[in-house]
């Protein structure tokens, strides 16, 4: 792909001596909304963590804006314009929304912190109304928004989002995904890992399916039905391919 900003080649990575990713190949052009899907243990979350420098990389490269960032520390990667929203509740529950955003602005110079916070409040007005509320006292959906906001505050070029729907009510999931769509509409590149495949296929422009640490399908969400997706998850093959073998 010509204008690909993020280019992953033959990536092998995991935890300690355990390999989870076994040669991932993926190119993400700027401004794309990609949903990473796959069965449990496929390496979806591991791929995001690897992009954010939180795993051990054995082989392969991650080219980002022409630079190989494989092996960089999280902090450096953040500086390079990649932000990560981890899975599960990931805020500071005993701090207010305001303080959480201040923590998220840790690497930003003091003078700019307020401006960046206002920028986030403009993006997520709901957080502004809750600015003095303790994060732990907010609903799951609001907390998830706060976590996305904390990542967006750094004005990343790529936003990595790991399963934002976990533990949320259907209504809250709707709100979170609407916000992701809105961010994308303003040009934000997003890599989303999601178990809720139905929702993910609705919002993403591109679906990438991982299985056993490899990309096994890559295409437009409209080109694959839900049944085919299930088939892929279970067998790693499309029905048609299975029949072709026989």
């Amino acid at each position, binding site marked *: 792909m010509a204008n690909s900003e993020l280019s992953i080649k033959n990536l092998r990575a995991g935890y300690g001596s355990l390999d989870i990713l076994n040669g991932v190949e993926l190119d993400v052009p700027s401004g794309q909304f990609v949903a990473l899907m796959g069965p449990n243990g496929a390496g979806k979350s591991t791929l995001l963590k690897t992009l954010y420098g939180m795993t051990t990389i054995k082989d392969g490269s991650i080219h980002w804006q022409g630079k190989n960032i494989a092996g960089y520390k999280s*902090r450096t990667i953040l500086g390079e314009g990649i932000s990560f929203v981890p899975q599960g509740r990931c805020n500071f529950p005993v701090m207010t929304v305001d303080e959480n955003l201040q*923590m998220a602005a840790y690497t930003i110079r003091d003078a700019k912190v307020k401006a960046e916070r206002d920028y986030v409040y403009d993006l997520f007005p709901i957080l502004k109304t809750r600015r003095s509320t303790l994060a732990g006292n907010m609903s799951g959906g609001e907390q998830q928004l706060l976590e996305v906001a904390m990542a967006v505050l750094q004005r990343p070029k790529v936003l990595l989002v790991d399963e934002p729907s976990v533990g949320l009510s259907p209504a809250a999931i709707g709100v979170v995904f609407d916000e992701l769509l809105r961010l994308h509409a303003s040009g934000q590149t997003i890599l989303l890992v999601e178990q809720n495949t139905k929702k993910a296929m609705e919002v993403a422009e591109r679906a990438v399916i991982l299985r056993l640490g490899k990309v096994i399908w890559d295409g437009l969400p409209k080109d694959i039905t839900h049944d085919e997706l299930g088939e892929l998850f279970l067998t790693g093959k499309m029905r048609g391919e299975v029949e072709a073998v026989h």
Partner: protein
Amino acid sequence: MSLTETAQQIRRRDLRIPLGAILLVIALTAPFIGSRYVTHSLIIALIFMLPAHGLNLLVGYTGLLSLAQAAFFGIGAYTAGLLAVTYGTPFYVNVVAAGLAAGAIALPLGIPALRLRSTSFVMCTLGFVIIGQAIAKNWISVTRGDMGLSSIPKPHFALGPLSFTVSGTMGFYYLALAIGALATLAVWAIVRSPAGRNMIAIRENETLAESVGIPTWRYKLIVFMISAVFAGVGGSIYAHYLTVVSPLTFQMYYSTTMLIIVLGGGAGTISGVVFGSLLFVGLTEALRITPELRMIAYGLCLLALVFWFRQGFAPLINRFWNAIGGAK
């Protein structure tokens, strides 16, 4: 807000000021009110408040459970004792040196220990106390082994023409009270600073703290050292108060007492630690009148704590304080 409501709030808030004043008066006149033994118990409580404050920074604010506090307490006591006995250095020099020595020793101990997480870290810190005791017992040429260091002089101040020795229990009480108050203020300042908030961030979610760019490891190491400084200062005052230091200063019992003060008082709160030191140290001293029942009563208190006050007494104190202050 209506006028009556404001008036009512002012009327109710008044209660906090008189109570604060009463507590201050009690603190300042305690040696005259209670017996000499009560004053002694209070001094011990005030001395233990120092390592407990340090431990609170570590356990309560940064989320690192450490049992090493008695080791730094012992290092402080021995530093002050050795300096006073061998070189005859004045009290304030010994206190500062004890704090610095404990903090300096915490650096090489903390570097490997803080690479460990949760239980492994706790086990490692437990080892420090045992090693400390073994060194104090066996490095006889310096520490005099089990004989310990005796006849450590009482604090003596020589400020120009003014020179006095704090010898009596009463005098020592005021010294301990002043140092305790200073330490409490120091902890308050640390916790209120941006660094304090970063510590809380590490406690709440270390991975997230790391991912927003806080140098978590460096923070933990610095807090570990600061907490050792508090323990070292506490140990030096203990040495000057008892005038004797022995390998028993390195006791697991001390580490657990400090931990009980922090957890029982309320980890992550300053008032909890102040209250906890008075309650738990005071209690063990006060219960000496019934030696047979002492440990049973102490145990029952701890059980009550676990069942009814999981977060220590701090929430209770806060609720009471807010109630008399007229807060909602």
